[in-house]
């Protein structure tokens, strides 16, 4: 069987696996967020932390809770990194330097997991487990919580009434509440992420991923040399790294490392894990708004964009246009032999289409146009299917924009799921959309304008620009993958990319919650003959088109100067 045929079969298996779990996982998530009861362990957590789980939160309170939680998350992680030298299992590593500790703390809190450090030479086991991996869980849970809150805003069907404080109805609520952030956070972690991760971690160990607390064990190799075999709680962290679309590797080389991703089947399993939740959330969305077809429309747009993007990226890698790939005869630089080129491209597309940023091969060495397709995936705003939660709310914002554009074209008042899109709503949607391009392009522009920051590029010319553009696009979109040649562990890059990650995560969350808040307040408009149906292929096609056109218009000039210039010259 040829490599390419095998690659197509691998994609077919992946699509089938996601297809099979779309319903059960989506339905399970729907149940999780509409359940009126609390599990015993959840009640225990609420009691221990003084949270009233039955109090609904309006959007400003929900947003403030997200921000407060984000702030203490950054602070605690920063503290753990700084005092590493005094913690157990530190492997002899000293505290992390302030700029790097800030960058890393922000990076993990924002679900970016950009890594300006090298895991095996910077972080001890305790910081990995109790610092970084905790944020792997919680940042993913925050993303899903916000998405669910946004869906609740759209789903509100009853007119606002005075909310009886403490009434059980408040989790779904009767007023303009969006739910309770602490409950959503806890349920996501306890009911969804933890059980799946526990199973996934054991599957990964069965494949060869390690789970121990050893330091480096130095062995004498066959030829009489020395080699340090590293240890660590890798499998437990690997599972949530993929499932939570985090991407922060235990090791510098992430999922290319044989201890993180030992075989070709663990590779496909990891790709499945990182796609599972983002692709199933639309089902939960459809159930929550009371119309499964709405979820199906959203997931179809995600799937079509994802498959198209993967096909394009994989084709560029298989054709291996470019000088070095032609000399080699294949785009194998930076890829593992057990995965091969097609399954490496598949991982690369999946990681950039979601907000994961884990890598099993090194994007910097991809063909120019293969690399450009990965950049394009991130620029798409990571909506196909996007990060855990962030993909769904990103897509819903685009759906609002699409309805608005369609409304302008046919001269009707735009509405989505019975909610009118007025100037307030469209303003929040527009601000949501603009924030990441502003951060990515402005950051890139400033970096290449500064001589010291230009020197961080490993490659020269157009490829050097691609490295910087990739870095800021990745940070602003909370992806975390890199054209890793660039030396970003400098005070300037750590600070600037840290800011890009922070603003790229929190501002869109606040805008989208504000939008949801104003949807929640509205009385739904009845469906009439003049209502634009948002579950038909026509709307799905338009939504996909709007997503691609908006991105193309925003980013084409930058892409033309970087990867396109490099790819077209020869």
């Amino acid at each position, binding site marked *: 069987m040829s490599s390419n045929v095998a690659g197509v079969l691998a994609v077919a298996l992946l699509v089938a696996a996601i297809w099979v779990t779309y319903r059960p996982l989506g339905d399970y998530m729907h149940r999780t967020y509409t359940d009126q009861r609390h599990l015993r362990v959840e009640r225990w957590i609420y009691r221990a932390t003084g949270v009233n789980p039955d109090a609904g939160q309006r959007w400003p309170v929900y947003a403030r809770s997200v921000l*407060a939680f984000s702030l203490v998350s950054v602070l605690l992680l920063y503290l753990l990194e700084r005092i590493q030298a005094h913690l157990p299992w530190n492997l002899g590593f000293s505290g992390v330097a302030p700029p790097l500790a800030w960058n890393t703390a922000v990076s993990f809190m924002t679900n970016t997991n950009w890594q300006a450090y090298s895991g095996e030479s910077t972080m001890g086991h305790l910081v990995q487990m109790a610092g970084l991996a905790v944020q792997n869980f919680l940042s993913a849970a925050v993303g899903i919580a916000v998405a669910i809150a946004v869906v609740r805003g759209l789903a509100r069907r009853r007119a606002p009434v005075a909310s009886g404080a403490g009434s059980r109805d408040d989790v779904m609520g009767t007023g303009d509440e969006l739910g309770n952030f602490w409950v959503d956070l806890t349920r996501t972690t306890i009911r969804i992420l933890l059980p799946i991760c*526990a199973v996934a*971690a054991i599957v990964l160990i069965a*494949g060869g991923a390690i789970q121990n607390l050893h330091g480096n064990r130095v062995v004498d*190799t*066959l030829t009489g040399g020395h*080699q340090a075999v590293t240890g660590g709680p890798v499998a*437990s962290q690997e599972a949530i790294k993929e499932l939570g679309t985090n991407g922060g590797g235990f090791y510098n080389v992430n999922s290319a490392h044989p201890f993180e991703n030992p075989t070709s089947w663990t590779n496909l399993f990891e790709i499945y894990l990182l796609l599972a939740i983002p692709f199933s959330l639309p089902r939960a969305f459809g159930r929550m708004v009371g119309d499964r077809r709405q979820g199906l429309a959203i997931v179809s747009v995600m799937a079509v964009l994802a498959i198209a993007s993967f096909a394009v990226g994989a084709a560029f890698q298989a054709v291996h246009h470019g000088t070095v790939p032609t*000399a080699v005869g294949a785009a194998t630089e930076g890829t593992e032999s057990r995965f091969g080129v097609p399954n490496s491209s598949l991982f690369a597309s999946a990681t950039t289409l979601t907000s994961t940023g884990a890598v099993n091969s090194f994007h910097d060495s991809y063909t120019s146009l293969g690399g450009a397709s990965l950049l394009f995936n991130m620029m798409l705003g990571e909506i196909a299917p996007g990060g855990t939660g962030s993909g769904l709310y990103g897509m819903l914002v685009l759906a609002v924009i699409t309805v608005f554009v369609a409304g302008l074209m046919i001269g009707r008042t735009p509405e989505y799921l019975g909610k009118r899109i007025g100037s307030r709503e469209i303003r929040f949607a527009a601000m949501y959309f603009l924030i990441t391009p502003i951060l990515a392009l402005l950051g890139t522009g400033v970096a290449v304008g500064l001589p010291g920051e230009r020197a961080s590029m490993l490659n020269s010319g157009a*490829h050097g620009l691609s490295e910087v553009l990739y870095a800021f696009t990745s940070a602003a979109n909370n992806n975390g993958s890199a054209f890793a040649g660039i030396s970003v562990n400098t005070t300037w890059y750590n600070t600037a990319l840290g800011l890009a990650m922070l603003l790229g995560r929190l501002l869109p969350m606040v805008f989208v919650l504000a939008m949801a808040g104003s949807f929640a307040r509205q009385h739904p408009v009845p469906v009439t003959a003049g209502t634009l149906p948002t579950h038909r292929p026509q709307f799905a096609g338009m939504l996909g088109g709007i997503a691609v056109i908006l991105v193309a218009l925003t980013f084409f000039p930058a892409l033309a100067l970087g990867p396109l210039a490099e790819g077209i010259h020869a």
Partner: protein
Amino acid sequence: MFAHLPGWVRGHLAALRILLVFTVVVGLAYPLFILAIAQLPGLHDRAEGSLVADAKGRTVGSSLIGQSFTDAHGDPIAGYFQSRPSAAGDGYDPTSTSASNLGPEDVVDSFDDPATKDSDESRQSLLTQVCTRSHEIGVFDGVDGARPYCTASGVGAVLAVYHAKPGYQGPVARVISVNEQCPTRPFLTTYDGVKVSCRTLADDVAAGRQVLVRGDAPAHPAVPADAVTASGSGLDPQISAAYADLQTARVARARGLSVARVRTLVKEHTSGRALGFLGEPVVNVLNLNRALDALASARQ
């Protein structure tokens, strides 16, 4: 307990308490629970790192982590199958894992300027690295190491072409082979009727028009792709079946074994695609070399 504090402080305290509770639940209880499960027979050896021993029972590494099979000078040992090139530290260093991160159009070498004593600015381009490896493997294994865009001596075949007028206009005035430092004879005698010269430190090769010389090497060279490219991890424990096949004759000769015997061992250490279609068929180099050593000690 915190009722006397302002609301925003109480909000943050609640956030902190939730965070601390989850730090215990998912940051300690969860990984330690998985660690406990990992002690089960069948999982334990893998969780420990798939360590393997030589014929004498001495642990020599992990079957998942590749090794260099070179002598003290860094030269390949003929009796061992060779791993792929590695960008992890000095090669296969698990404490410094890395890919090369060099781009597809990285074709111009940098040379060290002896005038600046403090640092070594020399850096081989990715193209030259590929060409050099192919050339050396060709010599080592007795096959043709030629590749497209490579010179016969094993560097990137790249010219800087200077024109008489700006904007690459007018006749060609001067041509430099950018990856061949003087004194040497360039791989090409003339280009467009102009003599090709070797490169000196004074040359500004970025000012010239870059011309890549494809040469007449076959599109599918004898030395396989994985043999001339660094892996993503720098720890790739495996090589392609094609690269193992290429090395079989050399290893058999060095060890005084029949080619058929070595080929059988290679086959035993080849794993096909998982489920028949995931990934690529590969040969585990450390396990294969251990088997060769075990065979040798059994014969003694």
